[in-house]
């Protein structure tokens, strides 16, 4: 079945009106992911943009048409591990899915995720990486790119945006030897759907999916540019699309990668960067990409 038919035939399992910003990448990822995952799913959403946008509901009303729990910022994976164990005990085949922001994945929720990956609970953990705590006013997080102008790393005479490089979350999860790790991008929907299907087929161990989720409000670009920004992230090798399973990496190669400045210039959070800063980010991107090429070996297509 073609990926478009899969998407077109499935019901939208999210409430039609949730208050995510105009052009929100995370909303697109949530709706598309749940269309693929289907009704036999229990979702946990920690505090973050999607929980704030009303996906977890309000009072007695639910934001999804399937069960959804709001967990704490730091226990999403361990919460779901318990839920999965219960359904295993009841002998019911239910998909247990986390949809968490990068703060609840790479910073606050990291120890529970690391533990769940190590114990090998069969859950699907989707992280939408919008590079910061966007829900509370664009504070920096561990996955914020170096040089980003955020509310806690402002640009002034002493500091010029975030001083540290981005935490490489999917690689950290691959090094946990998780059953399946993949990077997804909403601009590449065919790839997006096939990787979700693959994560669904994993019956032992944790699947970790890292989604590039541009944030028009926090990164400061026009809302219609969301998909373009996501696409440029792949075309400049800033966000390479790769998979990890059975101790091997599989990398999707980009023909004629563009300089990373083509991605950076779209967002106003990188407006202040001079040539030296951009060179530094480019060097970091190249280093990470070359590392991936070495790891993938012959599995590059």
């Amino acid at each position: 079945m073609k990926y478009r038919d899969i998407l077109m035939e499935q019901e939208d399992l999210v409430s039609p009106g949730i208050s995510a910003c105009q052009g929100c990448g995370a909303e697109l990822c949530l709706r598309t992911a749940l269309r693929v995952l289907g009704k036999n799913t229990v979702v946990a959403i920690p505090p973050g943009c999607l929980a704030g946008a009303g996906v977890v509901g309000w009072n007695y009303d639910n934001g999804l048409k399937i069960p959804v729990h709001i967990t704490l910022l730091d226990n999403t994976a361990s919460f779901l591990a318990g839920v999965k164990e219960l359904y295993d005990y009841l002998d019911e085949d239910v998909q247990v899915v986390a949809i968490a922001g990068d703060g609840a994945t790479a910073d606050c929720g990291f120890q529970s995720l690391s533990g769940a990956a190590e114990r090998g609970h069969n859950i699907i953990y989707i992280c939408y990486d919008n590079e910061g705590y966007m829900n509370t006013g664009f504070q920096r997080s561990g996955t914020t790119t170096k040089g980003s102008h955020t509310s806690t790393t402002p640009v002034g005479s002493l500091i010029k945006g975030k001083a540290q490089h981005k935490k490489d979350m999917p690689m950290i999860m691959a090094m946990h030897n998780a059953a399946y790790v993949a990077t997804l991008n909403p601009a590449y929907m065919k790839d997006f759907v096939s990787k979700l299907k693959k994560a669904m087929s994993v019956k032992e161990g944790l699947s970790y999916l890292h989604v590039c989720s541009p944030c028009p409000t926090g990164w400061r670009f026009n809302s219609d540019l969301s998909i373009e920004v996501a696409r440029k992230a792949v075309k400049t090798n800033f966000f390479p699309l790769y998979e990890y399973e059975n101790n091997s990496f599989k990398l999707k190669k980009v023909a004629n990668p563009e300089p990373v400045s083509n991605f950076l210039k779209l967002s106003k959070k990188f407006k202040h960067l001079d040539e030296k800063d951009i060179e530094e980010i480019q060097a970091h991107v190249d280093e990470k990409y070359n590392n991936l090429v070495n790891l993938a070996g012959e599995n590059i297509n």
Partner: protein
Amino acid sequence: MMESKEKEYITSVGEGIYSINTGDWRINEPVLDQEKCKKCGLCFLYCPVFCIEKKDDYYEINYDYCKGCGICARECKSGAIKMVEKGSSSYAKN
């Protein structure tokens, strides 16, 4: 215990669906020119609110919850979708 296939939902899902009228938000709204449309479905894939609906052999914009982000107009390869000021098109409902 019921078979999981028989159950529409696997646990209680609350009394209703929480929803707010995001259709109120938009300043500009998309208008789809059916003659120019090549039925590629890119707008359907990329709309974050899933406002583009597939009918039998054409696509239609549902304005009820459209936030007016403009992604459909930018991503449309055949230029069939234009953003116009809210209320200035005959397609718009409110």
